[in-house]
């Protein structure tokens, strides 16, 4: 896209688009997200050519629809469009078999935010909760959040696959929150 737009923030580009209704700003935004879009489509469609076609369809859909809504979070909106488009395509091809798999897709957890980790006032509860996690989750959560190890390092060191590491961290984080909330409720009574 145009060179002079490259240093403009996402929010500013969106604002400029809604002011001038010039697709050049949306083009710049889409250009910034192309690799991510390709990755998401590859994840769902498992085929490079289908993924590339799908990215183009997403571009078209965005250019058609962006003027109809007031979008604040472009990345989130774009992700939902790509995800829905891929799922629709999969459903067309495999109407029944893939349903169960789609049901297991992780759901975005609004409440489960990283801010949780920035708060150290509940250190004692954290230590207790860490001890109550399943061993795999405890190991991965400690290694990732406390020892600041990457997924790859954890997988290598403890003999998990990358998918297992991610899963243990996500589930461990969620369970940790539940345990800490329960501990807080208990101490407030």
């Amino acid at each position: 896209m145009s060179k002079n737009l490259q240093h403009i923030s996402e929010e500013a580009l969106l604002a400029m688009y809604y002011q001038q209704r010039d697709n050049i700003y949306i083009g710049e935004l889409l250009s910034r997200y192309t690799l991510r879009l390709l990755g998401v489509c590859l994840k769902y469609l498992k085929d490079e050519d289908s993924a590339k076609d799908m990215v183009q369809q997403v571009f078209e859909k965005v250019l058609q629809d962006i003027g109809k809504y007031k979008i604040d979070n472009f990345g989130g909106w774009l992700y939902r469009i790509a995800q829905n488009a891929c799922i629709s395509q999969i459903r067309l091809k495999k109407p029944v078999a893939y349903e169960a798999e789609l049901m297991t897709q992780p759901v975005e957890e609004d409440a489960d935010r990283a801010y949780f980790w920035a708060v150290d006032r509940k250190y004692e509860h954290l230590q207790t909760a860490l001890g109550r996690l399943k061993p795999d989750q405890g190991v991965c959560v400690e290694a990732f959040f406390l020892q600041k190890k990457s997924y790859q390092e954890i997988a290598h060191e403890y003999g998990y696959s990358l998918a297992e590491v991610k899963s243990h961290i996500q589930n461990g984080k969620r369970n940790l929150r539940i345990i800490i909330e329960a501990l807080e409720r208990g101490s407030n009574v």
Partner: protein
Amino acid sequence: MSKSKHTTLDKSEQDLWHYTSGKLTEQEAHAQEFAHLDDPFWNDAVEGLAEVQDKDRLLKAQLELQQQLRRKLESRKKQRRSTPMLTGMVALIVVIMLILAAYLFIFYFR
């Protein structure tokens, strides 16, 4: 982090590319993972990009898609520019036909 020679990638896409290509140190990789812990877009993209072994092919595909996007935008712009002209021409033809029809009507029924 090594600086990318690929000018088509902006900063966050560069980071994603370096991450999926395994070009980051463990600390840098952890920083990326931590920053995107609750970002399903990034995590799904990482999962999908990991399935392609030849990472350079990904960049080529990305470049192609960006070029196609640019062409799409240009053609939309041209289409938008040519629409008023086309409308004007159609209107002119309709007016001429109406004048002709009126003339023939008057000529035959006089």
